[in-house]
């Protein structure tokens, strides 16, 4: 028997990351789960005849796809360049606001419209990383269920009772011992939320303050923020960080980095135009004021999302 060259049809869902990606493909008799690592792909096949169940659960997934990041990057560049070229235009404020709205939409989708999908066979239980949004999961199930049903047929009657009967064998009735739950700790998460609120409020309150006050505040807040993020990563390594807060810590650090480099970009643009300004004047430039407002509102938005993450029923598990 020679190897048959399979034709694959792509199923809904594609996870696109910087270094890793995933997708699921349908062949005539099996599903192919593809995990890609830029220059390498790994494959796992699931015969349609062997699939026992597909389980999809709603849960937060803070994945940033390369496409959405590209959109955000274009918006951010447009905002910075626009603020530099046309400081008097209010359109730049609208662009900044649009960026914040985009971020909030992403946060909402990540929190409320995301899911995790598992495929169950007799010998394995594998996650399908490409199915991570609820609308994708719906379309995935719509396409896959009839194909599996065409191979296996469908279950008549109450399958749960039949399953209980089948499970009454010695091997199947031995459940896995429950994992010892590590208690969740909230100290560093609370500090991060507090720092972000303090950062946002202080930036808005000191928009027209002196450079020394603004710089001193910013440096102090940055030091606490970095300490809080470091503490959260230690908690994550120990398994005691509340679910979802790792991504909030990453988002906070990335946001801080973006704000810093935006400031550098504005200074570079001004220097390139031959504008020499003092530190006090620089902070009062319209571009810088806009940047600090965006930074402040982003901080407040991040703090609000973090609070939502912490308040979720599942975060304490």
């Amino acid at each position: 028997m020679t190897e048959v060259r399979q034709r694959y049809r792509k199923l809904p869902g594609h996870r696109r990351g910087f270094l890793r990606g995933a997708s699921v493909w349908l062949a005539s008799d099996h599903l192919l789960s593809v995990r890609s690592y830029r220059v390498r792909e790994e494959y796992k096949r699931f015969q349609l005849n062997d699939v026992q169940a597909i389980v999809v659960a709603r849960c937060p997934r803070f994945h940033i796809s390369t496409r959405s990041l590209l959109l955000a990057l274009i918006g951010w560049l447009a905002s910075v360049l626009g603020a530099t070229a046309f400081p008097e235009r209010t359109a730049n404020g609208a662009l900044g606001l649009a960026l914040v709205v985009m971020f909030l939409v992403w946060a909402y989708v990540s929190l409320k419209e995301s899911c995790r999908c598992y495929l169950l066979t007799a010998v394995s239980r594998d996650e399908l990383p490409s199915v991570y949004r609820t609308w994708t999961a719906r379309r995935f199930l719509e396409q896959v269920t009839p194909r599996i049903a065409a191979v296996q047929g469908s279950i008549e009657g109450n399958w749960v009772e039949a399953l209980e009967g089948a499970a009454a064998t010695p091997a199947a009735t031995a459940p896995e011992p429950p994992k010892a739950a590590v208690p969740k700790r909230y100290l560093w998460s609370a500090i991060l939320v507090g720092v972000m609120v303090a950062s946002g409020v202080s930036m808005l309150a000191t928009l027209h303050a002196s450079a020394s006050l603004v710089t001193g505040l910013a440096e102090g807040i940055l030091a606490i923020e970095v300490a809080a993020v470091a503490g959260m990563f230690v908690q994550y390594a120990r398994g005691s960080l509340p679910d979802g807060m790792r991504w909030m810590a990453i988002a906070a650090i990335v946001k801080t980095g973006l704000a810093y480099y935006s400031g550098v970009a504005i200074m570079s643009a001004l220097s390139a135009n031959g504008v020499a300004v003092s530190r006090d004047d620089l902070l009062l430039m319209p571009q810088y004021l806009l940047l600090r407002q965006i930074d402040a509102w982003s901080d407040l938005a991040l703090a609000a999302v973090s609070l939502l993450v912490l308040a979720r029923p599942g975060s304490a598990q």
Partner: protein
Amino acid sequence: MPILCARCDASLPEWELSAGAATCIQCGSPNTVRAFPALLRAPASAAAAEAAIEGEAACFDHPTKRAVAACHQCGRFVCQLCAVDFGPEVLCPSCVATGRGKARAANPETSRTLYDSIALLMPLVSLCFFPFTLITAPGAVVFSFLRWSRPLSLVRRNRWRFVAAIMAGVVETALWIWLVVYLVARVRERLNP
């Protein structure tokens, strides 16, 4: 086998599962469950090979066990325990392990290196450290031609990355040649005004 919550791995409440959806009692996540008849199939019991009596064909690897089939690849007799069913054919474990000939399809590949992606990344990533393009640009062109006929991804069917890599490599190489020619001309102008 209990159906586990896709979020927290806790067992889902069975009284809700027959409706195709269940809310996890541990994390509170709503789960959608599509179950198929394979779930109710009894697990295959370990094949018990029968002992061979005198005069009967015996398994190549287990001389005391009765042979039930011959490997379609190498012809060795195999017992119930050793017989690997692959579609309509039966293979022996050693043929499956080596994956040669007929057994090749029984041993499908689990990974592939994407040479087209490597070729494309070479001239593009090295742009971040542009002096490296002096090596990577012609390197990408040569690499693309050398690996052109190697298998691509199982699911991608075209070679546009190779084409793009060759084009990027040619453009970067041409720019380097232009730069060298330009610098040489400038030097000559200075030496011979």
